């Protein structure tokens, strides 16, 4: 089995799975009907993308594992998503800040992944990009609306950005699998995205009349499976059915 490719696919897929689950938690709990529907629609896009990635990972693994096994039956330390996507919904400002900080990265990342020598990854990237451009419009729009809104909405939006900011640097860390895949022309060199990411984010924050946080201290570990305490709770929800009724199918 192509170990590096397998790990590389999980690195991409786990971000979408965990963020999709977070957004899915808002079903029936969004601040308004429209935002509720928007967040869950975005969640659905993530789950769709994740299926394609895990199906491919299962094929690469070449053992008896299915896409469902890979998605549902790993332990916390075996998930390699970035810390940003596992952060809780807290309030709508946090939901939007997390989405915005991820969407800008996700769009840049997929634009590069589209050029991958691996035709499956390239096809998934092309398909996903169309959806992600809508996600980015949604989160950017709300970031501006809340940032440049009332005193209270601005305060909350700024607080969320400040808090989640510490999770952004990790997006540009390379794992060993990343390095090997970049070398083979399959993976994206995330270190090269960093500058344009922060430039873009800063521009939009400015438009939203928000301050770019000055903190130089950043969290890391997600890509190595070392997570914040939030992931365990999320997984216990996500995996509940498969753990309680092993091998169940809808």
């Amino acid at each position: 089995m192509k170990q590096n490719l397998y790990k590389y696919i999980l690195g991409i897929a786990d971000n979408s799975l965990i963020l999709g689950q977070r957004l899915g938690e808002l079903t029936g709990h969004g601040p308004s009907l429209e935002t509720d529907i928007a967040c869950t629609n975005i969640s659905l896009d993530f789950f769709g993308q994740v299926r394609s990635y895990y199906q491919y990972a299962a094929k690469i693994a070449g053992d008896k594992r299915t896409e469902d096994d890979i998605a549902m039956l790993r332990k916390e330390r075996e998930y390699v998503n970035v810390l940003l996507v596992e952060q809780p919904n807290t309030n709508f400002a946090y939901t939007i800040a997390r989405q915005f900080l991820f969407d800008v990265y996700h769009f840049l990342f997929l634009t590069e992944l589209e050029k991958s020598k691996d035709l499956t990854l390239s096809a998934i990237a092309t398909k996903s990009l169309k959806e992600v451009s809508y996600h980015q419009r949604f989160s950017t729009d709300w970031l501006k609306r809340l940032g440049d809104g009332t005193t209270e909405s601005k305060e909350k939006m700024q607080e969320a950005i400040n808090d989640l900011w510490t999770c952004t640097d990790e997006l540009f860390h390379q794992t060993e699998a990343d390095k090997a895949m970049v070398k083979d022309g399959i993976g994206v060199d995330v270190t090269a995205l960093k500058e344009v990411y922060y430039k873009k984010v800063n521009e939009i924050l400015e438009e939203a009349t928000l301050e770019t946080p000055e903190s130089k201290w950043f969290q890391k570990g997600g890509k190595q499976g070392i997570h914040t305490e939030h992931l365990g709770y999320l997984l216990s929800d996500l995996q509940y059915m498969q753990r309680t009724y092993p091998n169940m199918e809808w």
Partner: protein
Amino acid sequence: MNKTEHITRSSENSSPLGKVDGAFVAILESVSDPEIPVLSIMDMGVVRSAVIENNIVKVEITPTYSGCPAMDVIGDDIKAALKTAGYDSEIELILAPAWTTDWITPRGRKALEDYGIAAPLNAEADKEVLLNGKRLVKCTNCSSTNTRLVSQFGSTACKAQFQCDDCQEPFDYFKCLK
């Protein structure tokens, strides 16, 4: 989540209607999108090919949005329709080339409008409407373009919510996907 998915690349499939053997056109036209029952999957442009090999009809379909929950149902409906006509079939879900709203046929666009869903504008106009609040989408009730975006996301992944400021009709707009 147990269907196998294969991803193939082919440029010859990029026309609105793929390589569909004449014998299957009418059968496939009888299958509709479960979310939009007036629209056949042929007019929707999701059928990429249908050819018979060793007595089995191989049908390739492409998802509109990655997470579209209608795809599994559409696959089952195609199998059932072909079975009724006496054919065994295999359904393959393909991702490349990626589906675009350009593949919806003129007849499909009309069916959408008649059903109360505004058909997608071109990419430029779509952007103006969804990002800059331009009033370009025609109301499906009174045809006025004095309409405004209520939400970029609607009742399904492919639609946005609009309201007409002349007749007050709320309606769905099928978002442009290119």
